[in-house]
């Protein structure tokens, strides 16, 4: 019986993962078209964290409600690497936080959605874009929840280059001191920043050891693997931990489009012409492969 249940669970998970892969693929295509339409936006950084965002929003991790975005007991999510706003916006629109048609005006004249998130947008908790802010704000939210004996969690998604900011480590010390076990930091560890490869000019390695040394539980996962992401996030939800949790998600910047992958020049570049054709073709091919 136990074996049958395990097989059944595995099949359910496989189906779920297949569905989430399809979601991530559709969202990547949406992000690409938003950026192409605007001639602006960080495509490769959005692709880097797509599976993380999809796991959080569609994997049953974040308790949020698009129809009641100010629900007091909602989980709080802060996109501290604010330049991945197109990915977040595509998801929030998909979940009904605001009309999908708003995405058509992304970063265009008069629209409220720009290249970095602003908290006036339904579903956005913090005004980010300047790096190194989100973890402190998240720690404040997490402490507020504890003071009010509220059960919601706070999740902060950061970039690995963002970990250059000293304020990240001020917040890390604070969260450990206050035993903010209702706080999760996810580091999108793609190894690249706006202009280069971190290891070549200012290494952040070893990230997992750094978070552990700062008093956090830390775990590394493959950041494009739904199986690994969902496992660690779901185990965390059930576990009673005494420390905040850092998830180091090993990712590929530009994931999903071959010429963008691991190439720093695509940090803030929107493909045009032949490259756009290739990007579309590759994402469409992935759609077909997932059928």
């Amino acid at each position: 019986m136990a074996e049958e249940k395990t097989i059944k669970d595995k099949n359910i998970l496989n189906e779920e993962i297949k569905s989430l892969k399809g979601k991530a693929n559709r969202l990547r295509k949406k992000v690409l078209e938003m950026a192409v339409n605007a001639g602006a936006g960080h495509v490769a950084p959005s692709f880097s964290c797509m599976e993380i965002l999809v796991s959080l929003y569609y994997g049953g991790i974040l308790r949020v409600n698009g129809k009641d975005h100010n629900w007091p007991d909602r989980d709080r999510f802060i996109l501290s690497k604010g330049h991945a706003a197109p990915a977040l916006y595509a998801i929030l629109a998909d979940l009904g936080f605001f009309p999908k048609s708003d995405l058509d005006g992304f970063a265009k004249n008069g629209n409220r959605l720009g290249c970095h998130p602003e908290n006036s947008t339904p579903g956005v908790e913090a005004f980010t874009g300047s790096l190194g802010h989100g973890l402190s704000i998240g720690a404040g939210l997490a402490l507020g929840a504890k003071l009010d004996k509220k059960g919601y969690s706070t999740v902060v998604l950061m970039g690995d280059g963002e970990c250059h900011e000293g304020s990240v480590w001020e917040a890390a010390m604070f969260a450990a001191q206050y035993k903010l076990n209702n706080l999760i930091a996810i580091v999108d560890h793609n190894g690249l920043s706006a202009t280069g490869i971190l290891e070549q000019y200012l290494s952040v390695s070893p990230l997992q050891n750094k978070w552990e040394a700062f008093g956090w539980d830390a775990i590394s996962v493959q950041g494009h693997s739904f199986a690994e992401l969902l496992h660690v996030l779901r185990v965390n939800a059930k576990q009673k931990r005494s420390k905040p949790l850092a998830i180091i998600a090993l990712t590929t910047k530009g994931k999903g489009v071959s010429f963008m992958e691991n190439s720093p020049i695509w940090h803030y570049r929107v493909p045009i012409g032949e490259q756009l054709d290739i990007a579309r073709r590759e994402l469409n091919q992935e759609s077909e492969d997932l059928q």
Partner: protein
Amino acid sequence: MSHWTAGMRDSFFQSLYEEAKKNRNIILITSDTGAICHDEFKEKIPYQYINVGIAEQNMIGIASGLAQTGKIVYVYAIVPFATMRCYEQIRVDLCCMNLPVSIVGIGAGLDYSTLGATHHGTEDIALMRSLPNMEIYSPADGLMADLLARQYDNQSGPRYIRLDREGLPLVYEEESEFDLSRGFSVLSKSKQLYIVATGRMVYSALQVAKKLSSQSIEVGVIDLFRIKPMNKEGLWGVVKDAKCLVTLEEHFVTGGIGTAISELIAVQKKTPSFKVIGIPDQFCEIYGDRNDLQKLYNLDVSSISKSIKIWLKNI
């Protein structure tokens, strides 16, 4: 004798402590900066007192997060650390998000005289003034500081409160003598010359007025305690018919209340003759107590009176 006679800093925090005892949502955060009554916070209401360590950037972010959960947050540090070290956090986490957090800076102007330029509060008004959504309060004495600590109910966005450690003797005897919502108070009237002063320089301005009146120069004194938003219309209504207008502050002349008022009068058709008195645009490299440094910069009562007299003769 009321507690505010202890001075500006202690009256503010004693008053805040009394409020915090009644309201669990009030949270005081410091970046390892002390005041006598902080011990009472630590002992009696420890969950409402946070020392984030020497980490001002994090202090502002934590305040932002807590404010979003409905907490009434006060952050506290020496002026340059409360305003400059974390300026971009103030800009984004508090002002862009327009959250009701009070930044309390201790050591206005040359208050921390002997600690040197690193600890002087000489640019804070300029910095805070340039941020949208930010309000700036610069109380003249402990009585006003006391009231500011108790007035948070209607606060919708961030505010900066610039305090002196001492701030004695008092400028006011009763709270009814000033109206916080008006933004300034006219302590004495004149058709000849007004001094618009802020913080502890209000007391100095009153002494200057006394000194000059004995020499037949009639001086009106205005306490500009809310620097932003400035009640421009109200202020202009008072000073427009005076022949001369002087601003007085313990702050660099660049960007302080002198600049703020010059922006006000620059767009008027007919304006009083105008003089800005403050700290010159240079870092202080000389040590001494506050009186010594005020004399160095001609900000003592005698020097101010003299410079106004010379100026009046030449206009």
